[in-house]
């Protein structure tokens, strides 16, 4: 009974051992960019959009002549795996990217827990990591190879709350967050920012992601009669449901989704109740300043995911260009050199501004991509940009 099993085990082990050594020796011309993103479940649109944008950026760079390092032309290739938003899968993706595929640059990673699993491997193996994950603990002098590719709640909260406090006479605000990593990070920063803007936080509640029944919590929030309600990192579709319930209960204050990334989910579930909502991490592609290029990218993401482009996915696009700039500045494709060059590099971001990396005061090292904080508001079913607050450190 044991013998065929032993043979089976032996054979499998041989296969494993062999496959570990079969790795295509990398030609100098193509560098693999890894992506650890959710491709299934509720985060799928982010991951699918991120993958599309990575490929688009890589092909744009190839068309314009590639990255010129040491007289050679280097092009990018995107390798994407599904991290299912948890640490165990994130660890598996980390192993696949770093050990199996010999990836030296991760152009994007989404989801705090899987990113931390990835980071614990990338820092040890000298792999450069770009992430959209929030939380100050992911950056710093202990993680010299990690860079954040979108505005985190730390960058957004201050400018957004300041803007709203000036535009509306609000004295009290109630918070609601999903019980996940982003929610927990956002709640802390949001609370501080509101207090700093002179607004009192009267309550802070949590709900489990996946739930569709927001009536009880809407009743609770409405009973507190706050001047404003900040849904922080609640996904747009859930936020729409909350605002709809609130409207039904008769609450009519200032509506904010502090780090909301898009409007279509809001409108889908909130309808009229979503009018006037302020979003802090969304991009409005309806204004006069929108370029044809930006619209083309938005169209592409729409075809791939069904929804418009958002800041999370844009982060991957910008990271690819940041890598190009840093590689050309450092004239090297070694992660350590590229990371050193990253802190002083400049490149043009999706938003059109000249971007670089800053945040030394907050994180200890300049690892935060400098992007404008764009405050948008839903007016008549369209997302309109009402303020663009440039990062203080931008040159």
């Amino acid at each position, binding site marked *: 009974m044991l013998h065929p099993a032993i043979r089976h085990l032996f054979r499998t082990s041989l296969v494993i051992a062999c496959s570990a050594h079969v790795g295509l020796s990398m030609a100098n011309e193509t560098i693999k960019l890894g992506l650890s993103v959710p491709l299934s479940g509720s985060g799928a649109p982010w991951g699918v959009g991120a993958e599309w944008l990575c490929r688009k950026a890589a092909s744009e760079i190839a068309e314009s002549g590639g990255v010129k390092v040491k007289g050679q032309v280097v092009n990018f290739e995107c390798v994407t795996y599904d991290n299912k*938003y948890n640490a165990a899968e994130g660890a598996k993706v980390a192993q696949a990217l770093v050990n199996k595929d010999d990836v030296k640059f991760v152009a994007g990673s989404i989801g705090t827990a899987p990113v931390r699993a990835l980071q614990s491997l990338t820092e040890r193996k000298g792999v450069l990591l770009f992430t959209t994950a929030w939380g100050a603990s992911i950056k710093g002098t202990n993680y010299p190879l990690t860079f954040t590719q979108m505005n985190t709640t730390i960058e957004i909260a201050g400018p957004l709350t300041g803007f709203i406090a000036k535009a509306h006479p609000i004295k009290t605000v109630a918070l609601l967050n999903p019980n996940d990593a982003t929610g927990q990070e956002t709640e802390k920063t949001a609370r501080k920012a509101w207090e700093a803007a002179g607004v009192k936080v009267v309550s802070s509640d949590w709900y489990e992601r996946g739930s569709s029944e927001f009536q009880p919590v809407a009743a609770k929030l409405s009973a507190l009669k706050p001047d404003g309600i900040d849904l922080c990192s609640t996904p747009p579709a859930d936020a729409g449901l909350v605002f709809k319930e609130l409207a039904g209960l008769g609450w009519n204050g200032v509506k904010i989704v502090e780090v909301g990334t898009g409007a279509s989910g809001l409108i889908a579930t909130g309808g009229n109740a979503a009018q006037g909502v302020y979003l802090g991490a969304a991009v409005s592609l309806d204004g006069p300043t929108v370029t044809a290029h930006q619209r083309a990218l938005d169209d592409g993401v729409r075809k791939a995911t069904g929804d418009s482009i958002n800041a999370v996915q844009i982060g991957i696009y910008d990271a690819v260009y940041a890598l190009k700039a840093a590689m050309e500045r450092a004239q090297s494709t070694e992660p350590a050199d590229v990371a050193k060059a990253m802190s002083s590099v400049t490149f043009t971001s999706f938003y059109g501004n000249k971007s670089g990396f800053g945040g030394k005061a907050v994180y200890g090292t300049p690892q935060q991509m400098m992007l404008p904080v764009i405050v948008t508001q839903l007016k008549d079913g369209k997302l309109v940009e009402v303020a663009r607050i440039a990062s203080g450190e931008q040159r």
Partner: protein
Amino acid sequence: MNERFFRQGLLAVALAALLSVAAGSGYAGNLVIWIAIAAVLASTLRFVLLIGELNFAVAAFFGLGAYASGAATTLWQLPFGLSILTSGVVALLASAAFGYVTLRVKGPYFLLIGFAFTEALRILYTRSEWLGGNSGMVGIFPPAVLGDYFPTFVVAVAGALILLLARIEHSHLGRVFVAIRDNDSVVRSVGIPVHAMKVLCFCIASLVAGVAGALQAFSNNVISPLDFSFMLSTFALAYLKVGGERHALGPVVGAVLLVLLASVAQRFGGSEQIFYGAAIVFGVLFMPDGLTGWLARRRTARAKTALPSPAGEMQ
């Protein structure tokens, strides 16, 4: 026969450990670790099946073991061996309490209590800042002295644990468990405390699951609450079902098959889920006794006549 079985088993474990050295510490080495941990998990599930209960709370005790080791290593700075011991002890104590209270319930109701317990613990982890909350706990590293041989260590420990479970199954105690599954009134009439025996079985399985959880924590270095949801119990059950419940090697075979399949499916991106689900469906429909059951039937059929018996009969 039993003694030969265990000598062969020890030999197999030693061989597997040696072979895993060849896998190295890169991707292949980690693949071996995942397979080993999955095999242990499925084996504990099979062990509790001896008393006839489907232990859906296996993910909960696995998670408790992982968090115990994580806390022991990162918060209390305990050495490696002591951390793993802590995991086992925490899982044992928790399972004793849980089992004592819940094993009066049977069948789908016990399944649901296990499910509810797993999810309740998961929510508790997310709300515990000291355990890292939703962002997870980081920095759980094995001692440098193991270095590149960590996969070998995991295989050796996993193999030993599976062998231990098999040993108990073939002992007098194991026969008591099976008797309880078949007819607990008879067992009670002989004077054996049935409830205490069920709790004992449950505790042994959970202790092993807790140690497996510790191994996972050290191998991934980062753990998060979503790692220990009811889907983990479902996957453990899938390993068991696809591998075959009847033979002690069933969970191992199932683990090898499905973990390798998941690794292959990873490159399909979003289709990974479809592929994996289809594999499970296929496994259950066409091999209801699992791969080992199917192989065993081929063997007896070949021994009997030239005609192989059809696999997957109606019950």
